[in-house]
């Protein structure tokens, strides 16, 4: 029986699709609102292979990637600096926590004024949200570096700068990856929301919104699943990278 354990996740997927079929056949939901799974997957297939969905998918990937890269480039070095001095971090902690708690979507109008209607606004709001999450995690990773490990470096004669590079930075890597994973998820959320509303003509958010407006339900579900797959894939990608480069994480 144990051999079959890796296949357990399939049960949930099969169950969901079965429920979906039952709901359609028993007409539990208006058939216009809930198309057959086959119609949805067909729409997804044609959309992703040469249709609009594939193009919109790539736009969203591009924006989310850009936002995450910008966020990481700013937040990782800043997080290290802040984390290296606990007093410095405590003095800006409230500001970070405040804006981390502010829904990034509330910042759209402000960024629209700053950057106008276009990609720059979408990417910068997403980068803003992701950067705070990454910053917070990196700073905590640096602050929570094992004291014994820092002492060990010190007794072996490592300078403060050497300890920072040889110990503290590596110690903070697992937490940094937590930040990156959360950051990229948040960036995707913000990008998709931005694509739905502020003067967008492309991207997965726009695809979902437009399909809904035109009552093309299979297309709408297809776009939702594509967004889900993207979020899942990005998370998985970061997990794999982490497992490869932070092999000691959790051990």
């Amino acid at each position, binding site marked *: 029986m144990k051999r079959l354990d890796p296949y357990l996740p399939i049960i949930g997927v099969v169950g969901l699709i079965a429920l979906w079929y039952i709901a359609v056949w028993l007409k539990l939901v208006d058939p216009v609102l809930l198309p057959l799974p086959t119609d949805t997957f067909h729409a997804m297939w044609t959309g992703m292979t040469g249709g609009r969905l594939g193009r919109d998918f790539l736009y969203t990937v591009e924006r989310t990637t850009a936002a995450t890269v910008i966020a990481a480039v700013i937040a990782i070095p800043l997080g290290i600096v802040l984390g290296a001095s606990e007093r410095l971090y405590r003095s800006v902690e409230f500001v970070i926590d405040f804006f981390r708690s502010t829904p990034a979507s509330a910042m759209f109008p402000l960024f629209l004024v700053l950057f106008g209607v276009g990609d720059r606004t979408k990417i910068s709001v997403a980068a803003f949200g992701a950067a705070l999450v990454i910053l917070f995690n990196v700073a905590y990773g640096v602050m929570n570096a094992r004291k014994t490990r820092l002492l060990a470096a010190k*007794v072996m004669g490592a300078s403060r700068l050497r300890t920072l590079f040889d110990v503290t930075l590596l110690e903070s890597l697992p937490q940094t990856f937590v930040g990156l994973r959360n950051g990229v998820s948040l960036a995707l959320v913000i990008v998709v929301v931005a694509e739905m509303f502020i003067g967008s003509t492309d991207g997965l958010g726009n695809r979902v919104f437009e399909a809904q407006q035109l009552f093309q339900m299979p297309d709408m579900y297809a776009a939702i699943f594509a967004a889900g797959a993207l979020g899942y894939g990005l998370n998985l990608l970061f997990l794999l990278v982490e497992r490869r480069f932070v092999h000691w994480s959790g051990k």
Partner: protein
Amino acid sequence: MLTRSAPNPTSKEAADAARPHVTIRSLSKRFASAVVYDSFDLDLPRGKLISIFGPNGCGKSTLINLIAGLIPRDAGEILFDGKPLSDIKFGYVFQNYREALFPWLRSFENIEYPLKLMKMPAAERRLRVERLVERLGVAIDLSKYPYELSGGQQQLISIMRALVVDPEILFLDEPFSALDYEMTLFMREQLQRVFLETGTTTLLVSHDLEEAVFLADYVLLLSRHPARVADYVPFAAPRPRSDATLSNSDFVATKAHCLEVFQREVRRA
């Protein structure tokens, strides 16, 4: 090999052996409300293994941490052959090997890390580590990461990391207290072998009296704080010591004496 075992020691060697290795004068240290050391004086001999034992919270670990410079002292002077700590090479082994080793480095890289800090070329580092492995008869796959090894093996890696610089003095802070009894017995053997091979002056903090006496040339018994030397007990059983040592009358008597002093100090509260 060791100065003290040379058949005809020259007068200089004899003088070296007689002079204390570590001299502690007027050492004072207080934490928040507790005075842990107040004008504490102590001489420690060269090439001996000294176990430090005493009531809980009496400052056993604090003492070696003060000597090894891990925590700053409030007052006093600690010299090694008349030199300050910054002029000597020393090794320090932490109780928590899991947090003291670097999990991102392979065992070999962990051991050679202090040599890297000394800017020694890679080829020479490799040679030094290999020589140490051979001398201690260590049979661990050093290409593994620390978390792939057992607790005892990890602590052995930490001990090797401390020894690779050829330290003048070795500090061990309850090095075996996180290990199970079987592993502790094995590690005592290993530490004894290290000591016999290198003859390095060794300070061992222990919370286990059997271990403290078994390994020691001298047992330093501390009182409750402010810590004084409650007793300084020699144990001269020949090395290598074995399980038989544990039942020999000298060992039993020494341990009983230490226990008596310890109990007296505990009740003094």
